[in-house]
């Protein structure tokens, strides 16, 4: 790993200005996505701005119609939080299924969302639930946030501060994990909530997280597993790796969608 400048400011504002000044700066929180990439030489930021000393970003709050999750909340915190388990159990289940215990102890919601790995779980939850991503300067709807594999609407010096999830009437999560990495081969969240009926898929497509309009329409008329069982997605844009080829991935999307609706 190449060496780099390292900063651990005490506030979001200081983090933003350090990012602005850094040459090829990157934010690091738990580092569960970024550090493996740096070790492999696939990322070589000139400056790392750690949020580890920033306080106030690790709370989970009930805002009535929404649950607000601070950007530095770890997956373990989200999985264990009573408010989340009671009000959006699908979100707690999703967090509990990320990686392994040690990854969940370090990895954060803000990091997962900002990284937008095509096989990460949080982007699917954000899109399905119609979440809002709050940053140091604005609020971005999930619909406008995820712009493709490892690509988001965030500016270079922008820092996520929280993610707000509207509480759905019902929502379910199902994932077929890669047996080694636990990243999604195909992961689906199906939700019926303030943002409407939504089905969001991660892990499957080379373009990153996506919605399946045909499944959403079928579920809007009848929110039953059978409604999605007959809806298939095209294998054309699907990822292919050791775990699954494109046709199998496309098949898994339908199976996981059915299971997600069962869980809801």
């Amino acid at each position, binding site marked *: 790993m190449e*060496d780099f400048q*390292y900063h*651990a400011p005490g506030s979001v504002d200081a983090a933003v200005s350090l990012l602005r000044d850094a040459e090829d700066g990157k934010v690091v929180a738990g580092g569960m996505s970024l550090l493996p990439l740096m070790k492999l030489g696939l990322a070589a930021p000139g400056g790392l701005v*750690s949020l580890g000393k920033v306080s106030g970003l690790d709370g989970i709050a009930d805002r009535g119609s929404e649950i607000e999750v601070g950007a530095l909340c770890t997956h373990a915190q989200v999985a264990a939080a009573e408010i989340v388990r009671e009000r959006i159990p699908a979100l707690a289940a999703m967090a509990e299924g990320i990686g392994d*215990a*040690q*990854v969940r*102890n370090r990895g954060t919601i803000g990091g997962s969302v900002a990284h937008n790995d095509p096989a990460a779980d949080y982007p699917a939850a954000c899109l399905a639930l119609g979440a809002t991503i709050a940053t140091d300067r604005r609020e971005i709807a999930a619909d406008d946030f995820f712009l493709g594999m490892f690509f988001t609407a965030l500016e270079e010096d922008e820092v996520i501060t929280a993610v707000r999830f509207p509480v759905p009437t019902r929502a379910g999560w199902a994932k077929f994990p890669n047996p080694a990495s636990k990243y999604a081969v195909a992961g689906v969240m199906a939700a019926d909530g303030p943002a409407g009926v939504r089905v969001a898929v991660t892990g499957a497509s080379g373009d990153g997280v996506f919605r399946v309009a045909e499944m959403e329409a079928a579920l809007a008329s009848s929110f039953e597993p059978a409604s999605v069982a007959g809806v298939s997605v095209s294998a054309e844009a699907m990822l292919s790796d050791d775990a699954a080829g494109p046709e199998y991935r496309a098949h898994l999307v339908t199976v996981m969608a059915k299971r997600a609706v069962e869980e809801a």
Partner: protein
Amino acid sequence: MPTLELTVNGTQRTVEVRNRTLLVEMLREHLGLTGTHVGCDTSQCGACVVLVDGVSVKSCTMLAVQAEGAAVTTIEGLANGAGLHPMQEAFREHHGLQCGFCTPGMVMSAVDLANRNPDPSEHEVREWLEGNLCRCTGYHNIVKAVQAGARAMGGAS
């Protein structure tokens, strides 16, 4: 080079590292604590698990500078003098190891589980050990050891 202050196994330490130094490199190479192992070096195998502020983490996927001010516990910090920690004793008693390479990470991970859940079921132990790979045992005796160790710990490390 940045100078880092942190607590390792109960002792205040001052260490000079590079920004890129991994926590496991600092422990092994700067402090000589070679009980923490490096297996895969890709955050999958769990041989490098240590506790940071009481929570298990993979020390191959954390920068040493991220542990500034933290309390780190390694396998060397568990035993009380000549007496084994209850989780170590349980691994010995139930023969929860063969070659022993994965054992430090297994034990540290198990201590974190026991602190959260003093009486984990077999299923809960197996789920928890998702991130700790053993290539010898087939896990059976490890699971038994973790359950016994957790009960012996009585919910406190």
